[in-house]
């Protein structure tokens, strides 16, 4: 083709998109003037500062870039430069464009992962009378969606379950055949963030820790100053399924609060972070509703709590100082207790006030120290934590109270070696209550982990040499030593040694290119010097492996053996030993990408020397599956399976647990994984 000479000040043009919005995979077309081949060779294209010249094709008088992968939604920049014959760089064009889903929404997506299985039991024997019917229909769906445009974004996530046997759903039978796991809706617009559903509304601290509950929260955050404020209202008791709505409808089972944080040193945002939390609530803090997996005291309690944290990084982040102070007002029986179960409240105690503080110092002398040309990291620290005897918060169900801990620790990391040492002393009865004894506990923990880095030099053909016969090993040892003494007598306890615990865990793992194995041996010893409990020795040995043999077969064997010996039992009780052995093998074989089989074998033996436990069980679980249609995009996939289960349990103490049964199922599974 013959090109006419373009004017020296030629201007390219980014052509408009074909539709009303530019899609993520839509080619970018730049109109060029007539240029000769030499001039075209001098052009460079950059997308978001990445050189894409090699992916640009010149078609006629257009340069066309077809994204190899969909571009992210949002704004992008395309730049065209020319290296002139005299060596100068000329910017011929810069365009900012937006990738959008539609004209109305920059992003709009709904993705579903849906599975529905129909199973029929075609053979069985020995099933208990409670066994479900021959036919079962069950399924699960994970739904995720998002909408966004300039300045705002909304996302949602919802997990749904279906089972024709409602007893297998989280809330059990009598609640229908479809239920929900959890959900979360999030909306962001500028500095405002709002959430509804299961989430943690604030940072972990002394009064709120691991508090992921259903509820709502709304917050403001400043990208400029780092300041943020969040108000929240969440259900005290964990809930699951289609009940309790957003979780905030019951004032007697709700925690309300506010979290405010800021970074007051403008010149060094990370130098100091301040955070304040206040909350109040009531409800059964320590127990969840059915299906939530939380069991404990069902008493309805209530309380208020406030907490302030200052976290400072100084000396170029070599020194960290963290201080926290908290106060609580906690009512152990909430609105009162019906002590005689006659339906009326008979007792109502006054709330208890208490406080807690925690101080932590860590120091890392160097950030870039090298020893023998390898990075060397050393740190040390000190912790002082005091939590009052009656310190409780409705948003920290796992919180531990009545402790005063003084602890020092240090750690070294160098050349694959990591060692940690911690020594401390902890006392209780920190409120010095006259009726209570006080114990003091000396705590020592040491762990060392070593992962040698083999010097694997590439071979002449560029490939890495095979691992040595021992593969790539990792060794770990952890030792814990605790000694508890009664320091102040009370409630029948005399001063003196109370108990001692020692634990040593040794672990080695070895990894090869297609397989790995792992060995662990743990020794434990518990001595009780007050003789209300037996002393105990324990030994646990575990062996696991994960092997891939060829391209088709995978094997995962495991063996675990534990022995627990009791010594020096209390008067009137006999010492007993318990031996437990569990072995298992999981096997997978891929005949073809559409035909595969699995087999699981598991056996367990548990025996106590006093015959209070004598249990053995064997289980076989196998399946062979053929995927007739692979799920892809909006097209549903179909898989047919033959599954079998064999279960043999013999309990010589509780004979009602005995069962010897098998069942065989034919199953059809439909999977639908569309994205809209």
């Amino acid at each position: 083709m013959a090109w006419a000479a373009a004017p020296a000040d030629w201007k390219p043009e980014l052509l408009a998109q074909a539709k009303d919005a530019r899609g993520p995979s839509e080619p970018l077309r730049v109109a060029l003037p007539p240029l000769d081949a030499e001039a075209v060779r001098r052009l460079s294209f950059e997308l978001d500062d990445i050189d894409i010249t090699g992916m640009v094709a010149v078609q006629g008088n257009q340069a066309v870039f077809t994204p190899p992968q969909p571009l992210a939604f949002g704004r992008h920049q395309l730049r065209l430069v020319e290296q002139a014959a005299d060596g100068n760089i000329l910017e011929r064009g810069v365009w900012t464009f937006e990738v959008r889903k539609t004209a109305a929404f920059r992003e709009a997506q709904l993705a579903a992962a849906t599975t529905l299985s129909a199973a029929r039991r075609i053979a069985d024997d020995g099933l208990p009378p409670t066994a479900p019917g021959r036919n079962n229909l069950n399924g699960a769906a994970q739904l995720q969606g998002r909408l966004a445009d300039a300045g705002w974004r909304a996302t949602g996530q919802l997990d749904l379950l279906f089972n024709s046997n409602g007893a297998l759903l989280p809330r059990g039978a009598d609640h229908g055949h479809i239920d929900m796991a959890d959900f979360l809706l999030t909306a962001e617009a500028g500095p405002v963030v709002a959430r509804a559903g299961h989430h943690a509304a604030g940072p972990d601290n002394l009064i709120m820790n691991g508090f992921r509950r259903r509820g709502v929260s709304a917050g403001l955050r400043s990208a400029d100053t780092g300041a943020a404020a969040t108000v929240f209202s969440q259900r005290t008791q964990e809930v699951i399924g289609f009940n309790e709505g957003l979780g905030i409808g019951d004032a007697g089972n709700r925690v309300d609060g506010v979290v405010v944080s800021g970074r007051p040193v403008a010149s060094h945002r990370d130098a100091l972070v301040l955070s304040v939390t206040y909350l109040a609530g009531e409800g059964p803090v320590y127990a969840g509703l059915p299906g939530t997996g939380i069991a404990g005291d069902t008493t309805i309690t209530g309380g208020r709590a406030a907490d302030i944290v200052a976290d400072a990084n100084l000396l170029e982040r070599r020194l960290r100082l963290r201080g926290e102070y908290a106060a609580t007002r906690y009512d152990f029986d909430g609105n009162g207790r019906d002590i005689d179960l006659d339906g009326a409240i008979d007792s109502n105690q006054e709330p208890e006030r208490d406080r807690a503080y925690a101080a932590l110092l860590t120091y890392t002398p160097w950030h870039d120290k090298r020893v023998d040309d390898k990075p060397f990291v050393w740190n040390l620290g000190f912790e002082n934590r005091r939590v009052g005897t009656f310190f409780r918060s409705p948003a920290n169900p796992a919180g531990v109270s009545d402790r005063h801990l003084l602890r020092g620790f240090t750690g070294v990391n160098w050349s694959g070696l990591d060692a940690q040492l911690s020594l401390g002393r902890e006392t209780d009865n920190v409120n010095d209550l006259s009726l209570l004894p006080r114990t003091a506990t000396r705590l020592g923990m040491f762990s060392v982990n070593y992962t040698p880095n083999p010097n694997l030099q590439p071979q002449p053909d560029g490939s890495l040499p095979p691992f040595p016969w021992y593969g790539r090993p990792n060794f770990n040892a952890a030792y814990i030593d605790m000694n508890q003494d009664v320091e102040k007598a009370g409630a029948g306890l005399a001063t003196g040694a109370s108990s001692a615990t020692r634990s040593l865990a040794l672990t080695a793992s070895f990894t090869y290119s297609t397989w790995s194995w792992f060995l662990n041996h743990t020794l434990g010893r518990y001595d009780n010097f007050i003789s209300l409990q037996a002393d105990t020795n324990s030994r646990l040995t575990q062996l696991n492996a994960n092997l891939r043999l060829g391209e088709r077969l995978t094997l995962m064997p495991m063996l675990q053996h534990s022995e627990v010996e009791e010594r020096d039992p209390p008067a009137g009780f006999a010492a007993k030993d318990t031996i437990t052995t569990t072995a298992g093998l999981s096997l997978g074989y891929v005949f073809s990408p559409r035909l595969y089989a699995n087999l699981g074998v598991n056996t367990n033996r548990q025996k106590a020397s006093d015959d209070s436990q004598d249990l053995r069980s064997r289980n076989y679980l196998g399946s062979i599956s053929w995927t007739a249609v692979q799920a892809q995009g909006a097209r549903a996939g179909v898989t047919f399976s033959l599954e079998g289960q064999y279960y043999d349990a013999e309990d010589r103490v509780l004979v009602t647990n005995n069962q010897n049964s098998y069942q065989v199922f034919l199953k059809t599974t439909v999977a639908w994984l569309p994205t809209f």
Partner: protein
Amino acid sequence: LRGEIVRISLVPLLALWVCGAGLVSAQAAVTAVSAAPVAARVGLGSGASFSVNWNVTTSAAGAVTLSSARGELRTPAGALLATVGQPLSRAASGPAAVAFSETVFVPADAIHRAHKEGFDRLLYQRSFTDGVAASGQVTLAIVTQRAADFGLSRLQLGFDDGRPLRIAARGDKLKAQAEIGYAGGGILKGAWEIAGPNPDADKPAWRALANVTEALTGADTAILASPLLPTDIGGPYLVRLRVDEPAARFDLAPIRYVVGEKQP
């Protein structure tokens, strides 16, 4: 002191005859109730579980039913703190000594109230009857959490992201974890068990994936992780941490996961 008879409340036969209004044979009577252990330690500030074996002696001849409607937590001065509403009942051929076992959960507020009223202990009492009643008791010394007897106060099961229910894809690496609140110290014995796919919800065929033998010390919160859970066969599964020792009064309910498909 374990195994000793701690208190026997023998009601005078004459009063029994009056109270029984002729329904009870004059020879039938619970003559002794003993508890083992006779004493335990519970921690102030948290609920506590303890196990007790009751040995109940009846003088009744022939078939007899021994029962106890409820247990009571009281201060040493006799004030009722809480009622344990679990009935115990067993048929026997008398005269005989009949054993009952139970695990009792003492709510934190009952321990707290006894302490605030100036006591360093509370009492757990049960009255057994075959028509004529007698009672026994266990003394519960109030100490700190660290000095208390080994017992669970709370158990929270979840998956590795903290959620109690997961939809996993075939081949996913999935683990469960247990957050255990406890008092005192000792060796926790139990096993990670699963049932499924599509188990019998009323009587799951539990199979042990791994034993748990863990030294718990420090009256703290411990987190135990399960081994990898099977995800090679689709369908719903149940997972639980079966705790053999120490005994827990509350129901250690399982959590669920479903193996399905996922977005590529």
